[in-house]
């Protein structure tokens, strides 16, 4: 087994706020091998974006990080600043959620893509940088001539591809994408996801894809972890988690995106009542039990651990005391 590109071990992140400390991530472990894409799913506030931000150590100063985050074998949490600057962009890069607004409106996109290259390697000349920008644009399905465009001349999907090209500029081994297609519509989303999966396949990079849309993750990633209230509640092979979820929360997320043509979901949209818990006042026992249709008395007392479960025990982990029963079928 090769060394993983990303190896997160027992990560805890706590935000210090005026109202006290808020535990956003409460013990998450995750790893990505070269050429592998891993998805993280969950509602807003479940801590998925916080996990992503610790990989490049982009979390705000108010955050206290415990645990280990290894990128290419090096611990990011305790890394010196100088080393961190080398890591960012060149070894691991990020595609942000609000990508459509993160381009500089008054700079040509070619110059914006070339910027990280020139910052990381002073020997890259203008001509070489321009050639590489052209290559990158073609890699993401835009013509090299687009380098001379300004962001306002591009559509939403094209801007998102520019962001991907920028993330690839310094040949990183790991790319973290936080909701990269949320603002795009289905056809453009399909185009952008095609580009990303193609890059994982061809360049052998590792991809961490974060989304609230389990259906997107299951069709793009190899493995998916579902997070709830700062913890992973289920992780499994991507297709299986959508088709055969074992944790009741994963089942609810999967059911939220109906299969078109499935008579069960016709005129009966599936939702999950209630709201995610306040991280400062987490329920006792399993944090999901107040919203769970399957909760029994023990659920409010026992905090379940992430354990192998289901028929595919080798690559499926579930944190639910009723995981052995056929929970998924209820929804």
């Amino acid at each position: 087994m090769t060394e993983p590109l990303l190896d997160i071990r027992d990560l805890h992140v706590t935000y210090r706020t005026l109202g006290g400390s808020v535990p956003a991530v409460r013990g998450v472990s995750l790893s990505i091998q070269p050429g592998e894409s891993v998805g993280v799913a969950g509602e807003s506030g479940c801590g998925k974006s916080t996990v992503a931000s610790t990989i490049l150590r982009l979390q705000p100063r108010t955050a206290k990080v415990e645990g280990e985050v290894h990128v290419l074998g090096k611990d990011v949490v305790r890394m010196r600043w100088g080393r961190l600057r080398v890591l960012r962009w060149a070894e691991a890069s990020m595609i942000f959620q609000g990508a459509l607004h993160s381009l500089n409106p008054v700079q040509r996109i070619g110059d914006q893509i070339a910027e990280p290259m020139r910052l990381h390697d002073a020997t890259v000349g203008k001509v070489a940088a321009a050639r590489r920008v052209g290559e990158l644009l073609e890699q993401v399905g835009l013509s090299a001539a687009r380098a001379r465009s300004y962001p306002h001349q591009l559509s939403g999907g094209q801007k998102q591809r520019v962001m991907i090209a920028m993330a690839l500029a310094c040949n990183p081994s790991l790319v973290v994408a936080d909701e990269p297609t949320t603002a795009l519509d289905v056809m453009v989303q399909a185009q952008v996801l095609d580009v990303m999966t193609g890059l994982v396949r061809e360049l052998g990079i590792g991809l961490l894809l974060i989304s609230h849309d389990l259906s997107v993750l299951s069709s793009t990633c190899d493995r998916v972890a579902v997070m709830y209230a700062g913890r992973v509640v289920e992780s499994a092979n991507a297709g299986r988690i959508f088709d055969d979820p074992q944790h009741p929360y994963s089942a609810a997320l999967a059911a939220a995106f109906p299969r078109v043509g499935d008579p069960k979901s016709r005129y009966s949209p599936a939702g999950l009542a209630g709201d995610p818990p306040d991280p400062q006042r987490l329920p006792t026992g399993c944090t999901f039990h107040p919203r769970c249709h399957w909760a029994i008395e023990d659920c409010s007392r026992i905090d379940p651990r992430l354990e192998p479960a289901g028929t595919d025990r080798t690559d499926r982990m579930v944190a639910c005391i009723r995981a052995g029963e056929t929970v998924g079928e209820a929804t």
Partner: protein
Amino acid sequence: MSRLLSTRSLQVTFVGARGRRDAKAVDGVDIDIGEGEILALVGESGCGKTTLARTMLGLERPSAGLVSYGGQPLRYSVRALRAYRRRVQLILQDPTGALNPRQTVYESVAEGLRIHRLVERARKAGQRSSETELVARALGRAGLRPPERFFLSYPHELSGGQRQRVVIAGALALEPEVLVADEPVSSLDASIRGEILALLLRLREELGLSVLVVTHDLGLAWNIADRIAVMYLGRIVEVGSTEEVLGAPQHPYTRALLSVVPEMDQLAPIVLRGETPDPARIPSGCRFHPRCPALLDGTAAAAGISADCVGKALPVLAAEAGHAVACWLHPVEPTVAAGTAEVDQSETATRPAVPFSG
């Protein structure tokens, strides 16, 4: 089902600035929404679906054609529009942006009542309902119970789903007959999405509301819509019952849209190149032909119609047609009666991948 809100030969053109060409955002649309019907208007960004919805709300004026409500053409005087907007209410995509952050829930919902003087009107009509009662009733209908608990809350104290319910309550307070919802759940979390869609279904059931839901999400349409109209570059290209359009899609564009829904992994994805073209430069012939997979893979040539695809404009689909398609591969049959293209239910359930030759 009698028709409530309809458009005929509707066109909306935005005049190009500084010598640019005019953009034909809506370029000939005939569509009907029946009483108590949920119609989904589906298409990519830039296809004109939001402009069509805004025109049906009276927020844009048609350049040609007309919008009619209850059989009467829509009039654009201030007074007529105010009365109309009480009956046809808009629900926006982003509830956080739609609510005033410094207004309490009560104020947000009561604002519409005050603008339309509904309390005074009710009193004149002999009903004695106070503003508080009307606000509470609207909040309750939108699923915020007990309503009194939410009166003094500010938007930042509510979850995303609750905020969207407040927006819906604001619309319901005016006792509308039609809701126009523009991507009502796309900015909400997956878990909340189903709850809001279930609310729309319940409102139709309990209050007999008609709903026009504008979306690019075919799963949403499958969840709640009775009928679907697929829009491409200002025109409806396929219309029919949800079972027909999603169960046996005929237009190559509808098929492509359906194939890229992430849940549809049994279909080979047909990822179209490029994006919806510029409404200022609508292609000749069939407006979809530059991106049409059936033209690219030779299906159209085999059927001997590729010259038509490129050169011959398609007629506007009639609102009365049942399942209708604007595509030269599917010559327009005189299908006037609804439900002529009956779909076998068992086939709908299993959804075989349909080849292009259809």
